[in-house]
């Protein structure tokens, strides 16, 4: 399966190169290859990759070197979702950014596409697989994608907001505190 995908990938690249030769006015779409820590490789547009500040800085540093990037700390599943998000949002103008105040981040609404995107990380029972959300949040934090960080934190906040303390402890994987500590927290 992967070989076939590879082949199709190659043949497509070949065709596009032919196309570029034919009408050379069209700018070639800059591509780069990313390889994750669990050895999955992805080919993405440069514009998509530049959504991530991490890649943007890296591209600036290593301009013109066509070597594949090795992405540490990010699994293939996470990177696949991240590319899906970046592909959709790479043309947006009003992405959440780090300079937003807490208030505007709180009042911002989750868009329709984003909602479906987050729902697809959720399992059959309707509960979000918090591990998956967290894994993606960590990956987004590492790759520094402000829009995705906001979306993930908002989703996690929406998930834990109505939960009682015991359930929050379970989600956060926090051991139940001793009685004395409980007393301090009950202040």
């Amino acid at each position, binding site marked *: 399966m*992967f070989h076939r*995908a590879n082949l*199709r*990938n190659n043949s*497509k690249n070949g065709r596009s190169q032919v196309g570029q030769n034919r009408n050379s006015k069209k700018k070639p779409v800059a*591509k780069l290859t990313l390889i994750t820590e669990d*050895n*999955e*490789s*992805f*080919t*993405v547009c440069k*514009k*998509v990759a530049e959504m991530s500040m991490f890649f943007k800085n890296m591209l600036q540093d290593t301009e013109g070197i066509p070597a594949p990037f090795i992405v540490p700390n990010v*699994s*293939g*599943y996470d990177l*696949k979702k991240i590319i*899906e998000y*970046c*592909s*959709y949002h*790479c*043309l947006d103008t009003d992405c959440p950014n780090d300079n937003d105040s*807490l*208030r505007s*981040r*709180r*009042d911002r*609404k989750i868009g329709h*596409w984003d909602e*479906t*995107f987050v*729902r*697809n990380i*959720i*399992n059959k029972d309707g509960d979000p697989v918090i*591990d*998956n959300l*967290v894994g993606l*949040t*960590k990956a987004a*934090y590492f790759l520094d994608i402000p829009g995705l*960080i*906001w979306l993930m*934190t908002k989703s996690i*906040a*929406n998930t*834990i*907001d*109505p939960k009682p*303390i015991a359930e929050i402890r379970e*989600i*956060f*994987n*926090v051991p139940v*505190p001793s009685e004395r*500590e409980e007393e*301090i*927290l009950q202040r």
Partner: protein
Amino acid sequence: MQRTHSTESLGPDLKRLKLLEEDEEESEPAPPAPIRQRKAATIDQLPSELLTAIFGLLAAPGVGRASRACRRFWALGSDWKIWRDLCIADGMSLSRLPTTSGDPATMHQTALRHRTETRRAWFRGSHRCRRVAAHNLPVTCLHADAEGLVVSGSWDGAVKVWQLMMDEEEAREGEGEDAAAGVGVETPPATPPQWGEWDEGGGVREREANARLRLMRTLQSQGGKIDCLKYHAGLLITGGRGSPSIHIWKLERPSAPTIPPHRPAPLEPPRTLTPSDPHRIPTHVTCLDHDGTQLVTGHVTGIRVWDLATGRCTAVLICPPGTDIVRVELAGAGAVMSILISCIPTVPGIRCSHKVPSGPTGLDLVCGFKDGNLRMWRVHLAPGGATADPPVTLSCLSDWITCTDVDALADVVVAGSWDRRVRIWDAERGCLRRTLRETSPVLCARNTGRDSSDSTEKARNILEAMQGGRTQQ
């Protein structure tokens, strides 16, 4: 072996780039990918920066619960920026807090202390009770806000506007007569100082009314009984029985008691949409709500929506016979405008509800039932319809709940009931913390949102309107 994904499978970028040239349907996100086995990434592994961001997006009760989970979260949940935003969202007067330019540490401590102290005042503070003989017949509806404006409506057809005077404001007024009257009535010889019946004599009643609640003006409706009122954005709308049953008053915040009362302007006879019911306002309005532009009124027969600018009816909803609508609420969540209706189709029905906006698309609903229980729902509003989480039930042995009110910042629910009690619930833990006894059934209760500025005695003000026609705090 390396696994390679073709660009085709990651194609939304290309498709979307193409979109700019050709108008195509927007691509939907890919279907759920199978969840792979992966090493557990638990939420406590997140860096503090991300956890702070998550805490900043929670509502006040959520922050309260999450920060009690462990010490690390306690520290995170005590971030002053989070509390400043929550205080602003709650409408708490920031003038009591140091300004934002002040020292962040002081700011946070003050905000956090405010919440803690408010909770303590609710649960453990001493409650003083003062009665004001306001109306001759039962008080059915009440409005109170943080600026100290109080409006009460009664079956005697009068609407009275009061200014709630705090102790030190009263002292500043320097009217010795009032102060003397307050002291005099505080300790009547024959009755217990807290819960006793006051002398019905005119003089005492008047002076007592002036001591804490200063009467600003009286508005007399041309119809009969007043059943409901709503004050919002300088517009006071009352509904009741008689003709006309709806009155609209332009009511600015009273600055001095000498302002002459405004003339009421009755609603012009609006055009209705049903041909069988031409040119007539229903004679009995049981409940209403408005947001400054739209007015929703509930009747025995149905619901009407009015445009306040033109005074015309824009929509009519006819309900099946026997539906007794007791409460309507307008709930705005972004572009979605919802009308919440509660009614009594059978005996154990919803009596009354209160909403707290919990986010851009959510509502916290508190409903009081005839069996004496309170249930709280988190409702998610969406253009297609609303969904609700399973309710949290606050149950106790009591009579029919008549009214509820919520202090969102402190996470406290106040419920008045027919059995002459006002109960104070801790919504965070879901337990009953306090019961205040009255001498007559409580018909409506409102939290004024102000606490007494006396530092030695923190007391949260609740206004209760009672069947006996007194207002009390």
